[in-house]
């Protein structure tokens, strides 16, 4: 691990451990914006990891960012951290300035904003669905259409009407509608297909990292609980059935972390999305098992709102569906295999032919 990464990871863990409490996450779920925590994260430079210092960023690379996102998952941070970070990476690629205010991203096939250029500014119309943290974000990174040309746009949300909804974890997933709204915006000509693919990869990997982090925390909590909780006159970790569950939890967690770490390196090195797809398939499949078994070990106490466990398990249930579930990513892998006539599975797995034979 680079020194930079070690520092960022340590710093982030310190901030989140001290500040992202159970009660704070509860409050966020009740609809209260956690501005203080946002500020701390911003001041630590987390939103501009992967953006060079010259361009006003923190430095480091994408991989550093994904490792920080793992911690965002671990502490169930109720803020659009991954959206703002990835949004800034996209802005950088487009040659735009990074943002420190909350960003969100809505890049989907068949959803775009119609743009007309008028004297008083831009006139925008369109609906974006399931926008993460939509109600709290200042701007959204999305696709615009102007006279049949498609653009990458950075659009202020002020002025849009917002229909609130949430995912299983209580995180906002809002519908944002613009209806002839007059606004400023920044736009860059873009190949939409490439952009969609890119965003799916970045968001997919960010969710893999966040899920791995959540599992890590769940495993720690569960092991700790089996030490403290007594039944039949002894701590429950002495029960063989509990031991079996702990081992399965450890296995799913370790496998998710390992393949995600591998995917992060491979993506950083050569945009390899094969490891990324594997990581998403694995983490999404593991999520359900980890949630189920951690609850089973915790028993009744773990399903109460008072307990922290559900803040993490509900996130696993929500996140495994977001940015593609295991079916979607397995299908992506299947397409790659089908399109690669010549290789056997083993050649595909070991990839000795070239750096990235399946790209």
């Amino acid at each position, binding site marked *: 691990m680079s020194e930079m990464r070690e520092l960022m990871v340590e710093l982030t863990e310190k901030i989140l451990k001290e500040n992202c409490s159970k009660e704070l996450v509860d409050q966020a779920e009740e609809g209260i914006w956690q501005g203080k925590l946002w500020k701390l994260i911003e001041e630590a430079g987390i939103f501009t990891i992967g953006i060079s210092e010259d361009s006003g960023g923190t430095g480091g690379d994408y991989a550093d960012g994904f490792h920080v996102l793992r911690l965002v998952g671990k502490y169930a941070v109720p803020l659009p951290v991954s959206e703002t970070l990835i949004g800034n990476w996209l802005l950088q690629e487009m040659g735009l300035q990074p943002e420190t205010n909350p960003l969100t991203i809505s890049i989907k096939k068949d959803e775009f904003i119609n743009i007309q250029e008028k004297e008083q500014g831009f006139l925008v119309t369109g609906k974006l669905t399931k926008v993460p943290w939509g109600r709290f974000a200042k701007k959204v990174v999305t696709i615009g259409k102007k006279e049949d040309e498609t653009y990458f746009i950075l659009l202020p949300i002020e002025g849009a009407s917002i229909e609130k909804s949430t995912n*299983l974890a209580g995180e906002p997933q809002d519908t944002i509608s613009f209806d002839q709204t007059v606004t400023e915006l920044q736009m860059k000509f873009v190949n939409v297909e490439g952009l969609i693919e890119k965003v799916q990869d970045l968001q997919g990997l960010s969710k893999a990292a966040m899920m791995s982090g959540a599992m890590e925390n769940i495993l720690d909590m569960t092991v700790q609980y089996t030490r403290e909780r007594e*039944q039949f006159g002894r701590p429950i970790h002495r029960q063989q059935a509990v031991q079996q569950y702990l081992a399965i939890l450890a296995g799913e967690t370790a496998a998710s972390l390992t393949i995600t770490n591998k995917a992060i390196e491979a993506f950083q090195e050569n945009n390899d999305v094969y490891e990324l797809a594997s990581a998403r398939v694995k983490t999404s499949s593991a999520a359900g098992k980890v949630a*189920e078994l951690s609850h089973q070990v915790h028993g*009744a106490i773990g399903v109460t*709102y008072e307990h922290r466990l559900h803040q993490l398990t509900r996130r696993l*249930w929500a996140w495994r569906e977001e940015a593609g*579930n295991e079916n979607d990513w397995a299908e992506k892998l299947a397409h790659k295999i089908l399109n690669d006539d010549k290789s056997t599975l083993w050649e595909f797995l070991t990839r000795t032919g070239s750096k990235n034979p399946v790209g």
Partner: protein
Amino acid sequence: MYKFVLPVVEFTEEHNRFRLEVREFLQKEREKGTYETRCDSWLNGFNPEFSRKLGEKGWIGITWPKKYGGSERSALDRYIVIEELLAAGAPVAGHWIADRQSGPLLLRFGTEEQRKFYLPKIAKGECYFAIGMSEPNSGSDLASVSTRAVKTDGGWILNGTKTWTSGAHHAHYMIVLCRTRPKDSQNRHAGFSQLIVDLSSPGVSIRPIKYLTGAAHFNEVFFENVFVPDENLVGQEGNGWKQNMAELAYERSGPERILSTYPLLEELIKELKENQDLPRLTEAMKLVAELNSLRQMSIGVAKYLEEGKDVGITAALIKDMGTKFEKLVAEMTRLLVNATPSLDSEKTIEKYLAQSILHAPGFTLRGGTTEILRGIVAKGMVAQ
């Protein structure tokens, strides 16, 4: 060795007519807006109006003698009513415990006065009971229950805490498992009794426990020097453990341990049929076959229960398998259709999926955890 042989039950034409009658009633009530279908409705669907309507129909306490307000119908008729209610996801949480286990317990162990007093009210759908077994720290280890009743003039003084009691905030009474004698280190199961506690008595306080969804279905119930009159002792003093075990057989073998997520399965099949998606419908049929086999087992146990057979071990087995199945429905559904679980989605399947996933952790905990049930099954087989 213990054998799990269950009878094959064939419903008659008369049964089928009755089933259609129940189904028609449920459909009309849903159309009228009395209720909205939801998963896990037997724990989360509280609706006093609906309970009263069922009472009017004679469908609560349906098997009980007429003199106690029952309809003297068969166990299979009862089975039909409750599985139709569950399949429709109707709001039955209010009277569920009273109908399922408190009433039958009183019928079997209660005094004539108790039967005459409680059963008709239950059968009308106006009197709800809560279960008083679990305690903080007792969890699966029921023998460690420490709520105690001390004899006094004309009754008992009760002190202690019960927890995870579903619906106690709506219930009128609770049957409390408590110690009436000190612990006997030689026999962990001795010295227990069951008392009917009026939850409006002085000294009773109820604190809601929020479920992970934020909703309050269950509670912590505190007893502080609560006076319980002699006539509220159920069965014999000191026989509480055995009576409690009998109660558990009612609690464990019913279709609510198989059908909590049924509305979701129904939606899944509907969607796959609409899509004409044969490969995925084929996968879903594996769930249907599993359900079919569990249902036949559960019906067989209902028949045995009516015949007075001891079905404790088989009930534990079915509860274990059934609750695993309920979870599997949710986990399979999310991979067989394109649906994002969300409690506030407009799509029915996404709503049911969210309900099922969020409630799933409780399925294999409440009413005996997977591990406890499997222990009961294994020990039962090895012993006999």
